[in-house]
């Protein structure tokens, strides 16, 4: 009977211990999620308020939690410990995983030619941005646009020694470079980063152009991912800070959606302005003709997704006609 009592006490004790153990592990999970939720909420506030201040660069202290940035097939979010904030309409160019005590946030306004949005690019000091200095040419302007607090490097093409100790590398090459074709295809056994990308920028004025993405392979060479267009400095910076081509393209689509809506609003506005203009006024031709502001805004709206190549041409025409309208004392279309 005495032995039976002890067994009973042991069982009861084990049950009580098990109960308290499960309670504490549930509490631990809950508080980790709570911390993740608070960090996410604070990050959302920082990004939302930063997005209202164009042309800013700030460093945000982060706790040691990994942030996942996801953008694919019309679904985009950033999450911590499984708690997500959806960003369907806000292009955020970043790597797919962020884990660094300092987050560097670069806000760049995107004009097309009216202001569409403030683009957010996220990086850290662990992301090395390497320019290969061979006929940088117009890319010097890009280098000047990047804040000096970033991990920027310029290296010689004759001695491509990539700086060590970074988690991710973006190697930038101009399409005008004599080695642009060679570097994408040759194997480079010297310090080829495993985690990173190479981009070849093809542009004459940094206003528009294309970016060709390459990713490193296991056999120490670069594999072509594809070419994407960029319109404006904001999107070119986005290509630099994006994880890869698919991440950039996904965010580019978001930006073009915002462009479509903004162009539609401006077109509606132009129609109202046109209604108030008398037929004899010279402003009527600038607004209402085939090459007028209303048709240009309509074309921009239609082609924002359908034909990206045409967007730049429409933008330039819109800018030109609007400047004529302003010179003639008409109401500005934007």
């Amino acid at each position: 009977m005495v032995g039976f009592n002890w067994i009973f006490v042991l069982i009861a004790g084990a049950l009580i211990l098990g109960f308290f153990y499960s309670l504490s592990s549930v509490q631990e999970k809950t508080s980790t999620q709570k911390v993740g939720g608070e960090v996410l909420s604070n990050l959302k506030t920082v990004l939302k308020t930063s997005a209202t201040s164009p042309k800013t660069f700030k460093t945000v202290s982060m706790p040691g939690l990994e942030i996942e940035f996801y953008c694919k097939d019309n679904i985009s979010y950033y999450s911590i410990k499984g708690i997500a904030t959806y960003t369907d309409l806000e292009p955020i160019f970043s790597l797919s995983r962020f884990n660094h005590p300092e987050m560097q946030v670069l806000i760049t306004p995107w004009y097309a030619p009216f202001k569409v949005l403030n683009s957010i690019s996220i990086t850290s000091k662990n992301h090395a941005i390497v320019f290969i200095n061979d006929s940088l040419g117009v890319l010097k302007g890009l280098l000047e646009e990047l804040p000096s607090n970033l991990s920027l490097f310029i290296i010689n093409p004759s001695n491509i020694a990539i700086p060590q100790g970074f988690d991710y590398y973006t190697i930038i090459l101009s399409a005008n470079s004599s080695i642009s074709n060679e570097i994408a295809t040759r194997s480079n056994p010297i310090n080829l980063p495993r985690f990173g990308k190479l981009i070849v920028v093809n542009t004459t004025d940094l206003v528009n152009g294309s970016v060709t993405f390459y990713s490193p392979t296991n056999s120490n060479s670069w594999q072509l991912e594809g070419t994407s267009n960029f319109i404006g400095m904001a999107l070119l910076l986005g290509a630099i800070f994006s994880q890869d081509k698919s991440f950039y393209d996904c965010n580019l689509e978001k930006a073009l959606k915002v462009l479509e809506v903004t162009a539609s609003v401006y077109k509606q506005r132009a129609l109202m302005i046109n209604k108030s203009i008398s037929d004899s006024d010279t402003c009527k031709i600038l607004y209402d003709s085939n090459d007028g502001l209303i048709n240009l805004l309509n074309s921009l709206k239609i082609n924002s997704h359908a034909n990206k190549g045409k967007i730049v041409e429409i933008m330039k025409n819109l800018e030109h006609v609007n400047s004529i309208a302003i010179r003639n004392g008409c109401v500005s279309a934007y």
Partner: protein
Amino acid sequence: MKTENKIKMKSRKSQFQFFETIGVLIIIFFFIFIGLIFYSKFEKTGFQRFSRQQASKTMIEFVQSITTNPLLSCSSQSVTKAACIDELKALSVAKTTKNFSDYYQKTFGKSTIRLEKFYPENASIVIFNNSIPSANLEKAFIPINSYNPLNDTYNIGVLVIERYYKT
């Protein structure tokens, strides 16, 4: 006989101790249960307070995003003017809501945005309306300049932003 009685006594004692132990355990679990109830009530109150704080924080972010949104704010040659709403843009947004309902739902959410002009002209423009009748409401009144590009004039007005949320 004596031995039998002794065994019976011991058995009764052990049974009595057994039930005593069970009783103690029941009381312990009862107190733990009461403690858990109080703890959950305390957490619930804390959670409600956190929700209200989050709602206020979200409202501030929302107001800031509305007043600086390129779809509404005044601009001249792409230069944005602070604390200014373009009346024609406001009317255009109102007109295009149906065409891009998904976009506006995601941008403005469950809210009502109105531009109330006071001086010199008295008028009201409902920019966006997606209200929920039985939800909690956070309201913000933002003094704003209302610009009419047709006659190049400014009105003094207030941007009324009502945001709906459920706790």
